[in-house]
């Protein structure tokens, strides 16, 4: 599909870049384009970012705009909120979602409430980026997938760029958004590669996207789960099943229309969610399908989620704890085996 923010049909080269480079390019563009933008977080400067995302930016933009912070998650997130209200457009980087719990009070009780509590006077145009997800044997305190959990909070938007294009294009849109936007970057994606047109630009934050059209059932995924859903779709093709794959892209607000349009047609759905199953965003999606497409569905919605366990270090256990293409395949076949109504 074409980059939503492109400027018409010009012929430009389409180099292959990594997700990491796409995020870096997005930050660089934002810093160049708007002098109110700055980047702030732990080790974003001299260290180059714990995932090397911001490498080189300190040299290019200087200390005032690439700000290394002390280890004080609550305060530098709160300071980002304050700076946003003070007329700047901060990009706050929390190294990983695991540490964001220390800043949750500021996110939920300040960023998400101020517009409302002030009767519409103070909006908070802050962007908070963080890495998320498991799969690298980092164990129980460094492997959370909480983006779906964050989507419970009214007053913020939650996006999960899963593609190179979204990694490149969502940041600018987030910075233009008047309200707090949380961007969750699955850490396993940083090394993934893909083509990115040189004139790739901003993309909308909201709206799910059909990544692979299909007729037999719908696979719904986001962030780190999208690759797995696409892989499962390929496996399903081998079984003669034509799966539609949807990238949710934005977990708050969810795009009910796209979801319902697809499942209304395929009548069967599997949701892929790295988060712990109980109370995950997959539950919300399943509940909405049940509410809005009750008579359209031929089989119960299946959920392939993270196991309900703090992430184990051992590789084989961790892999078993996370959704896999095989599990998705099995769930898909299970739902297809149901009699229908």
């Amino acid at each position, binding site marked *: 599909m074409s980059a939503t923010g492109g400027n018409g049909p010009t012929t430009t080269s389409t180099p292959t870049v990594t997700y990491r480079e796409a995020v870096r390019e997005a930050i660089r563009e934002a810093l160049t384009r708007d002098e109110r933008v700055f980047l702030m977080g732990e080790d974003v400067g001299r260290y180059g970012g714990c995932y090397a995302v911001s490498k080189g930016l300190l040299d290019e933009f200087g200390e005032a705009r690439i700000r290394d912070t002390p280890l004080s998650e609550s305060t530098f997130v709160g*300071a980002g909120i304050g700076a946003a209200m003070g007329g700047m457009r901060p990009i706050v980087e929390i190294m990983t979602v695991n540490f964001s719990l220390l800043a949750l009070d500021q996110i939920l009780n300040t960023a998400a409430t101020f517009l409302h509590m002030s009767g519409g006077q103070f909006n908070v145009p802050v962007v908070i980026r963080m890495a998320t997800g498991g799969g690298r044997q980092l164990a129980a305190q460094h492997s959370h997938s909480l983006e779906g959990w964050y989507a419970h909070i009214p007053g913020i938007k939650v996006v999960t760029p899963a593609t190179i294009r979204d990694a490149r294009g969502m940041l600018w849109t987030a910075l233009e958004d008047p309200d707090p936007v949380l961007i969750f970057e699955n850490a396993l994606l940083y090394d993934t590669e893909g083509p990115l047109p040189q004139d790739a630009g901003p993309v909308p934050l909201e709206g799910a996207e059909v990544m692979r059209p299909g007729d037999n059932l719908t696979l719904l995924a986001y962030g780190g789960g999208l690759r797995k859903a696409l892989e499962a779709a390929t496996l399903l093709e081998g079984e003669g099943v034509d799966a539609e794959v949807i990238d949710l892209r934005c977990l708050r607000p969810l795009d009910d229309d796209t979801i319902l349009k697809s499942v209304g047609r395929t009548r069967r759905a599997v949701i892929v969610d790295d988060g712990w199953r109980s109370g995950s965003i997959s539950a919300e999606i399943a509940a909405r399908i049940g509410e809005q497409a009750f008579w359209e569905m031929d089989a119960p919605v299946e959920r392939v989620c993270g196991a309900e366990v703090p992430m184990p270090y051992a590789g084989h256990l961790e892999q078993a704890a996370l959704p896999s293409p095989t599990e998705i395949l099995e769930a898909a076949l299970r739902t297809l085996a149901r009699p229908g109504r």
Partner: protein
Amino acid sequence: MLLIRRFEEKSAELYQEEKIRGFLHLYIGQEAVAVGTLDVLEPDDAVVATYREHGHALARGIGAGPIMAEMFGKVEGTSRGRGGSMHIFDAATRFYGGNAIVGGGLPLAVGLALADHLRGLQRVTVCFFGEGAVAEGEFHESLNLASLWKLPVLFCCENNLYAMGTALERSESELDVAVKAASYEMPAWPVDGMDVLAVRDAARRAVDAVRGGGGPYLLELRTYRFRAHSMFDPELYRPKEEVEAWKKQDPIDGFVGKLQEADLLSDDELEALKADAEADVDEAVAFAEAGTLEPVSDLTRFVYSEDPAEEGS
């Protein structure tokens, strides 16, 4: 100070009448702090306060009417009735709440100052908090960050000796708040918070230094709340005699006494001022009473901004 005092007394009455609901934290006894500090600010400086903020809001020049209307839950209130007593906000005077999470306002103040610093504006952000907030991690993180980055914040710790029912010596290993500031290399000094002139002098020096680029300052304003923590507090934790002793230092009586000693205020003038305050408060109540309720159909407004074009502040 007279206005604040009268406003708070009236609020207490209205709470009994159930016109005001929720939590109500009165500022009676502490008036000199807000009045003395805010007097030295420029119009485009910023203020961050707590849930005990009527005094600060009034001293900052926000109308008594809109504040009262806010507590009545009316659209004419400072926050359209969505905030209530604990969440007075005002964009015009850069009054950033009305924060009801203890310590939660400090990072915010640091961020507002950071914005000014980056934008090259000579503005000051004043951040009020109680001595109870000093134990919170955010106090530590915020003082460190503000000092490390030399940001223009004036931290005003209103030490009224109690955090709800917890006396300072039961919450702090080191009682001298100014000593704590030293561990962030931040200048700090204690001030008699019952003496409005002393507060103003200290605030002026501090604000000038902060505005001049000297980095953050901390003032410990030693004061006392004459009333209960909130309307639910049976005050089991402090002896009546202590309260009575502090009432002898009433900031209003003290200031009036000084003025009268210096023959700057006649009894008649004082009565006239009191009558003014009374009238202002009556007017505020009338304004609030006459206010309207937000239609229920608008319930979910202000969760997200309504027009992306009107972004920014």
